[in-house]
């Protein structure tokens, strides 16, 4: 991903470092917000409201990663990045933000904790790579914590979507009804239900993919260390 940045262009390099540092900082602020909230209130009630602005801003800023991949600033696959970022942006902007009833639900702190830890480590890792350092410990964290955080995040996301179904059905949120001149109707409730089979199909594949990546990354790292010794 960002680790494969082209080393030729110093402006691009500087931008990527700035971006990754800012994203690390942003997600750290969210992380501190979460911890603070739990210490102060001991419940997830009101947690989303506490971190909403930072979450919306930094999660949306991840769209730049798709742009980086498209213009070739980083060598990661644009479509793969798009799918990852797009699903998160949708959860935030199309489910949690508009469906007030779901904000204090148990799914939200689950995904918040999973996303925040993952992102702090991921952006920190990229930053170090861009600076030419491969921190073994962070590499290990990046390719290990997902074993717990990924299922936790997906459980949080599906729970959140599940709990938004009823409010969406009642309010008719984002639904388009017949008759209209476009002869088109959309039931957002059904659209949300269609996400479950998608999770069911893609989660096992991506999870396995991550294990394969883990094997590659951790093995590659130890061999490169041997060389340097």
């Amino acid at each position, binding site marked *: 991903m960002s680790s494969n940045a082209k080393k030729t262009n110093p402006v691009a390099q500087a931008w990527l470092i700035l971006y990754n540092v800012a994203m690390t900082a942003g997600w750290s602020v969210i992380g501190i917000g979460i911890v603070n909230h739990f210490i102060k209130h001991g419940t997830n009630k009101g947690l989303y409201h506490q971190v909403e602005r930072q979450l919306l801003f930094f999660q949306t800023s991840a769209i730049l990663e798709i742009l980086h991949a498209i213009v070739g600033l980083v060598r990661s696959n644009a479509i793969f990045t798009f799918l990852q970022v797009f699903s998160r942006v949708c959860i935030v902007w199309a489910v949690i933000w508009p469906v007030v009833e779901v904000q204090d639900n148990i799914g939200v702190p689950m995904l918040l904790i999973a996303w925040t830890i993952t992102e702090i480590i991921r952006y920190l890792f990229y930053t170090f790579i861009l600076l030419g350092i491969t921190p073994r410990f962070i590499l290990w964290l990046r390719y290990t914590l997902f074993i717990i955080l990924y299922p936790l995040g997906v459980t949080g996301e599906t729970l959140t979507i599940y709990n938004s179904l009823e409010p969406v059905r009642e309010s008719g949120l984002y639904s388009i009804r*017949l*008759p209209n001149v*476009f*002869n088109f109707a959309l039931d957002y409730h059904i659209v949300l239900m269609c996400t479950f089979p998608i999770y069911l199909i893609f989660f096992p594949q991506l999870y396995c993919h991550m294990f394969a990546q883990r094997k590659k990354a951790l093995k590659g790292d130890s061999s490169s260390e041997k060389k340097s010794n």
Partner: protein
Amino acid sequence: MELQILHSKNKSKMCALQRLSSATTVRDIKELFHKQNPKFYPSRQSYRLEPRSKSLKDSDTLGSLDLSSDGVLYFKDLGTQLGWSTVFYFEYAGPLVLYLMFYSRLPFIYGEEYAYKPSSADVVKIAAVCHTVHYAKRLLETKFVHRFSHGTMPIRNLFKNCSYYWTFAAWLAYFINHPLYTLPMYGDVQVDMALGCFIFCELGNLFIHLALKNLRAPGSTERKIPLPTKNPFTLLFALVSCPNYTYEVGAWVSFAVMTQSLVGLLFASVGFMQMAVWALGKHRSYHKEFRQYPRSRKAIIPFIL
């Protein structure tokens, strides 16, 4: 000459072929392999020089290949293969039947209240005729016009293509035949003009398919540049390499305008993107094959793309 056939995945030995000459073609190898491994009929097999290099053509001879001294070819199983026409029949029969199920308003679709009572609006009836004629035409063309030179495709394409065509047809039909359907904004003018364009494009598409069929005598492998014939509909060959796609897109845009359907427009757009990719590929291969290929021709949209 002897040849070892290894599996491209695990590099295990599949078989050894003896008494080959430099004139032996890849097609011959497929036949010989089939005799030893009855499960893998020729169109299922693919051969390459390296486990991950490009697949060899059937017409390649061993003499023309840069074979290693120990004579190794890598075998890849392409999976169950189906003929193009089989896939086409399934692809096109689905929309034809599905659309008419929605048109006749089977009770489980819009409820008992509307069961078997098609809309009384003219445009809805016209649309049903257009849709049915379109897919009937495609089925007949598959049977009588298109020539499939031994082409096959993997069975998963059947599922992929059918889900695309069937889902879109059902989605399109659902709204057009809906009891709450809204009539076109500009009334009969809109319907009549769009219908005219639809018929024109369908005819154009048919005549292009016929012209392509007549370009080559049956059994001949001689390749020619397609040119306009006496039929004025084929004049579009002077402007684009794939006028059949131009007409096809035109027909779907007309259908969408006639029925004033957003899903129709979406179907036309997705279809256009896919056909543009195919047309650009075909256009490039024409340029590669014929040095004197007309420069002014575009791929699918005259003067533009």
